[in-house]
């Protein structure tokens, strides 16, 4: 993810005050006043249409600010810019949510955690915490005693605040109603079998047609990023498995890669082979669970049992080597926890043969089913532009025709050396999202098949100091998780604890685009839409 000279010229021509800092991956620091102008130019003139990640930061005396990771989806160029406001009591930055739609939720998250007011943002409510929460927890000076457990039921407001700038440079608070008085609003969740966890939707209906959806997150916000700041680097790894537990391997892979990158540690070929195979096994596991859950939500219970039957086979293989069924805690900094089991290769090969034959069963019972087709085809369409603008990666983006696979865009581990096809569809509907996952199982099997016989000899754990300290700087890495791009942004001040760790959730952009997808479709389609978007709530809330 290097920034070439071109981008430096572009940034300094638009914003002469930009400062390039070289530590780690490097980034541009720009004054907050020119943030909007630069963002608009980068998006409109230079094609940086994908906001990969927006990270809130507390830089202490330098103030509070944000780091923006941008990518040009046609050329694959990346640029990292950051802006800060030194006023800690009342920090404010201009919004970019009209430039990249995905920034809407990201900025709400940053407001929630850091209290940065985004001027011009239309709906600056808290995203994760309760409305009556005091203070902003990710700030370094946050006092934890402010918020004891509150057992009062939460009152949700019907209006959204926004801040606008007046001519004299001060801000005024405006409130907009979320729903009109006469609208018919129903609640779905947080305890609902079809939301796949504790997500809550407020749905405004006209008859059976959805007029608007307001998503409420945070029912499983565990404060993982804050916990990481008081954990040593090996300790932070444990949290990643529990973010998106259906992508435990990949998440941990991403964080290990990021720390290894900062340490300048090159892992052996054997480790890269093992990690790649494990990632793909995990992806098959996740996609099988996706099919099971989607079909269960839509009433096809048989497929649920098929999916779990095959999934247990993957779990057995993983368990034999790692000791864990769901949460494996396998990757470590500079290697993996244990060498592969002597039976691993044989069992994986047996599984490839088994799984290929079983895939037909899914097609026979579900893919070709008339009811399934009618409920999935043509419903919940997400356009390619919207997918990029929201940053909806993974199967969702690929179903809309956006080739967003990190394994192809920024190859890591062994992905640059194996031959596999990136599955894309153009329809962008529920059926395409379902088919992408089914076909990806085949591709994952292909990848494993190419690697499994050639695992080279070597060490499975590189020599690493017992006490890991990273140099000063910031790094970011991304992997293709089970349901999209999973990114890690890490900032270090040379300590044994990270200064800030941000996980780019794969699910948050997917929830952000539910409103766009589901508008004007029927309420029953919301179940199919939620099922095919395939979000995991603890990964959204972190």
């Amino acid at each position, binding site marked *: 993810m290097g920034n070439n000279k071109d981008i430096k010229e572009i940034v300094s021509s638009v914003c002469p005050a930009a400062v390039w800092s070289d530590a780690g991956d490097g980034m541009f620091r720009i004054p907050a006043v020119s943030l909007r102008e630069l963002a608009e130019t980068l998006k409109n003139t230079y094609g940086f249409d994908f906001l990969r990640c927006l990270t809130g930061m507390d830089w202490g005396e330098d103030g509070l600010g944000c780091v923006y990771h941008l990518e040009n989806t046609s050329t694959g160029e990346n640029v990292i810019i950051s802006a800060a406001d030194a006023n800690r009591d009342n920090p404010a930055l201009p919004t970019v949510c009209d430039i990249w739609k995905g920034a809407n939720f990201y900025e709400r998250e940053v407001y929630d955690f850091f209290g940065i007011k985004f001027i011009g943002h239309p709906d600056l409510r808290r995203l*994760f*915490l*309760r409305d009556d929460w005091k203070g902003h*927890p990710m700030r370094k000076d*946050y006092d*934890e005693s402010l*918020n004891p*457990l*509150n*057992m*009062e*039921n*939460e009152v949700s407001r019907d209006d959204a605040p926004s801040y606008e700038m007046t001519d004299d440079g001060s801000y005024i608070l405006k409130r907009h109603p979320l729903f009109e008085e006469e609208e018919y609003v129903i609640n779905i969740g*947080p*305890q*609902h*079998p079809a939301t796949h*966890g*504790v997500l809550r939707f407020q749905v405004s209906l006209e008859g059976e047609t959805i007029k608007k959806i307001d998503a409420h997150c*945070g*029912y*499983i*916000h*565990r*404060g*993982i990023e*804050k*916990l990481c700041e*008081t954990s040593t680097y090996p300790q932070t790894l*444990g*949290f990643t498995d*529990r973010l998106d*537990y*259906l992508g435990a391997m990949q998440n941990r892979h991403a964080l290990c890669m990021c720390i290894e990158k900062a340490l300048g540690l090159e892992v052996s070929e054997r480790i890269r082979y093992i990690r790649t195979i494990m990632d793909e096994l995990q992806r098959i596991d996740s996609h099988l*669970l996706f099919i*099971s859950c989607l079909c269960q939500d839509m009433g096809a219970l048989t497929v*649920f*049992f098929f999916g*779990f*039957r095959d999934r*247990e086979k993957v779990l057995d293989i993983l368990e034999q080597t790692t000791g864990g*069924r*769901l*949460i494996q805690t396998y990757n470590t900094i500079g290697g993996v926890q244990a060498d592969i089991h002597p039976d691993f290769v044989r069992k994986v090969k047996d599984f490839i043969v088994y799984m290929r034959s079983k895939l037909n069963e899914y097609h026979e019972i579900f893919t070709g089913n008339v009811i399934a087709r009618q409920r999935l085809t043509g419903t919940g369409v997400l356009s390619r532009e919207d997918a990029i603008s929201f940053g909806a990666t993974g199967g969702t983006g690929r179903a809309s025709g956006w080739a967003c696979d990190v394994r192809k865009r920024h190859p890591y581990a062994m992905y640059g050396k194996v031959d596999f096809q990136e599955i894309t569809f153009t329809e962008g509907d529920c059926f395409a999202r379902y088919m992408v996952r089914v076909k990806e199982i085949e591709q994952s099997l292909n990848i494993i098949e190419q690697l499994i016989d050639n695992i080279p000899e070597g060490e499975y754990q590189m020599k690493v100091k017992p006490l890991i300290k990273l140099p000063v700087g910031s790094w970011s890495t991304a992997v293709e998780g089970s349901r999209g791009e999973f990114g890690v942004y890490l900032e270090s001040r040379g300590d044994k604890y990270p200064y800030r760790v941000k996980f780019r959730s794969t699910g948050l952009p997917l929830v952000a685009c539910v409103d766009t997808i589901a508008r004007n479709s029927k309420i029953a389609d919301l179940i199919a839409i939620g099922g095919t978007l395939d979000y995991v*709530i*603890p990964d959204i809330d972190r």
Partner: protein
Amino acid sequence: MNRSVKIKSMKYEDFNDNEYIEEMLKELRENGTNVIVGCLDDVIEWGRSNSLWPLTFATSCCGIEFMAIGAARYDFARFGFEVARSSPRQADFIMVAGTITHKMAPVLKRLYDQMADPKYVVATGGCAISGGPFKKSYHVVDGVDKIIPVDVYIPGCPPRPEAMLYGLMQLQRKVKAEKFLGGLNKGISEKEYEKLMKADTNKAEDYREYDESGLA
């Protein structure tokens, strides 16, 4: 009246924490019931313990293992748990599978209150027991027993499906050692229970003042 807490296909000695069950049985014996009610009770508890319906409730990782015990390999239908209900009104027990955060805590309490008596709580996994790996977090409840009474704890992160089944069998034994007719044994005296219910009713009456004219 001799109550049996026998579970088919698992020996009494193979269970841990038998002292706890013995204590419950002792209390039952000491209180004493007449023969007819006692026999009837025995039959009812046999039926109840073999048709405990869970609430489909999961917040995080443990929920996936909860689904796994619902599938064919572990199959909790063998024990009569297969009728997972989505409505708390129809559920007998709630399996708290996953972390409970500050924002979720009032919701969980409300779900628990909505369930009909007799009801049970199974705390599944490290997070539900103590906060688990997230104990130090600013937004995590360190143990659901701080907000609702827990009957069975199943440790693990996440617990293996076998552990979950074992925990649920312990719950069955607990149900078998209970009195259904002629009194309570919920760990509190009848007087206390009445007082609690009264407080609840009063609360409900307060809500009646709430203006419902606009809701139609």
